[in-house]
């Protein structure tokens, strides 16, 4: 029974809680958005590409990021909105790379569509840049095998799942998500680790993500 194999090192679940810090920076048009996307702290880029995952669980998997939403709904630039919405966040291993991709998408669009620079948001509908401040806390849940792991997965907050899947990889720049890292290195189960890191978590709601991981691990336990 794979579920009872003891790990070399236990897995301690952490949780990640966040505060939104206002910057006072706002964009009213695409040109200004581009300048600020290049300048603002990485915590702003992280906030605007990941906020929807936690705040709009019932809307997920759409819309995927604030830039795409604003460009489409406020400026009416559907084509650019689609390009920004379809950026494959999984392909980027750092916020720096993700920022460059967002900036180049806007830049290239403006080259092809110079009149898009002339569209302005109405007062009150500007793009406000916000930073995400993360607080990482260890929880009291520590597990030694896959069976305990799934039991905790069923009851831990979505903030914890969010932290280990999204934030650990992109913001803390770890090579993979925390679950896969532990399963590969402490349980020597590379197959299961790859299966978890192999699907795109950005296209699911956080509750779907929880269920998907429980299902994958559950199958391995009964193998």
């Amino acid at each position, binding site marked *: 029974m794979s579920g009872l194999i003891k790990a070399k090192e236990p897995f301690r679940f952490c949780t990640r809680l966040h505060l939104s*810090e*206002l910057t006072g920076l706002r964009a009213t048009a695409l040109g200004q958005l581009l300048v600020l996307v290049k300048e603002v702290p990485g915590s702003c880029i992280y906030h605007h590409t990941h906020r929807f995952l936690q705040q709009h669980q019932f809307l997920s998997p759409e819309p995927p990021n604030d830039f795409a939403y604003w460009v489409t709904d406020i400026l009416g630039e559907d084509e650019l909105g689609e390009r920004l919405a379809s950026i494959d966040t999984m392909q980027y291993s750092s916020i720096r790379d993700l920022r460059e991709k967002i900036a180049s998408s806007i830049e290239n669009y403006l080259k092809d569509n110079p009149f898009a620079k002339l569209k302005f948001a109405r007062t009150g509908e500007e793009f406000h840049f916000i930073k995400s401040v993360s607080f990482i806390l260890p929880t009291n849940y520590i597990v030694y095998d896959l069976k305990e792991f799934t039991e905790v997965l069923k009851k831990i*907050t979505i903030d914890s799942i969010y932290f280990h899947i999204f934030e650990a990889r992109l913001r803390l720049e770890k090579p993979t998500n925390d679950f896969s890292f532990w399963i590969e290195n402490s349980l020597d189960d590379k197959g299961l680790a790859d299966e978890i890191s192999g699907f795109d978590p950005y296209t699911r709601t956080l509750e779907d993500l929880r269920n998907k991981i429980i299902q994958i691990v559950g199958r391995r336990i009964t193998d």
Partner: protein
Amino acid sequence: MAKIEEYASLVGQAVIDDLSLLGERLKGKAIQHINSTPVGGGVAEILNRMVPLLRELGVDTKWDVIKGGEQFFNVTKKFHNALHGRTEEVTRRDFEIFMETSRENIENVNIYGDIVFVHDPQPIALIKKKAANKWLWRCHVDVSNPNERVWGFLMDFIVQYDSAVFSAPVFSRKLPIRQFLISPSIDPLSDKNKELPQETVDSVLRKYDIKKDKPIITQVSRFDRLKDPLGVIEAYLQVKKYIDCQLVLAGGTAEDDPEGFKVLSEVKEKAKSDPDIHILLLAQNDIEVNALQKASDVIVQKSLREGFGLTVAEALWKGKPVVASNVGGIPLQIKHKYSGLLCHSVEGASFSIKQLLSSPAYAKKLGENGREHIKNNFLITRHLRDYMLLFLSLYHPEDIVHLC
């Protein structure tokens, strides 16, 4: 009053466990809230619930109220209106009156908090007592388009705080101090938002002689010009041409709002010839507010300016379709056509109300989506978490804080 563990049935035990973890990190810090009124209005309502829950989580929290006479509150009401962008003549004498009362409060209010959390402009000058402790200023009003003279006057105080807190991104501007976005919240277990038996709802309707024979449109708000009760009546009259309905305008007045009774009499005057308009002056009766919201077919919040508009969250939590102005914190609560309808005018409001009354299935869907959105983002448990993180942020300037 509900205990913290009772919220687990709504948000999950793990959320409560996270709150306890944060509470442990704040052991040894005394938090002192200061505002200007113990009852009436959103700030007092939130603090009444927040303070005991923080204490239960092990956070040493107390709440003090400053003193002020009629003249002082007349001036702070002027400030309030001016910050909301209304034309107000604010004289030099007004600023003097503000400072005279502030000086008395600076002398008399005992500051004991490691963290002093000042709410709104009325007690803002207490920052003069800042020592080695941390100070937060919480702005609950819509300052997206403020009177610059009043804002400039307040800015001299704001910059002395460690951090400021606003309810919506649109209120932020460049400041030399840190500023955070924290939305207010509703308490799902309070008398205003808990489940009510149908008999209670019916008895409240009977008490106010409201019959269920035609659709009920309701706005619950203080009688304040910025809530535009006269505009609501106009919107209702436009709907009434096509759909036989009734309007309930229900609300109280806050102790620090001297203008309330004047607005109430204007509203009564405008409504007097229509027996289907019910003007209810409720003396802080949350069960009755709850019952009226539950009994409504459409809930309106047609504010001209809005710090946040908690009545929108209350209505959505009850699964009601809402028509509300696209101002202040309201668009954070309503995504247009998904969890409610946003409007910009009397005509827009009346059109949306007609749509909802004519399409009950659509109205129901908007209400369901709205309830889910409030559950995920605007319940008091999220607010408790944000406040505790805010307190911790005063000791951690970094963007990624490891609390190991």
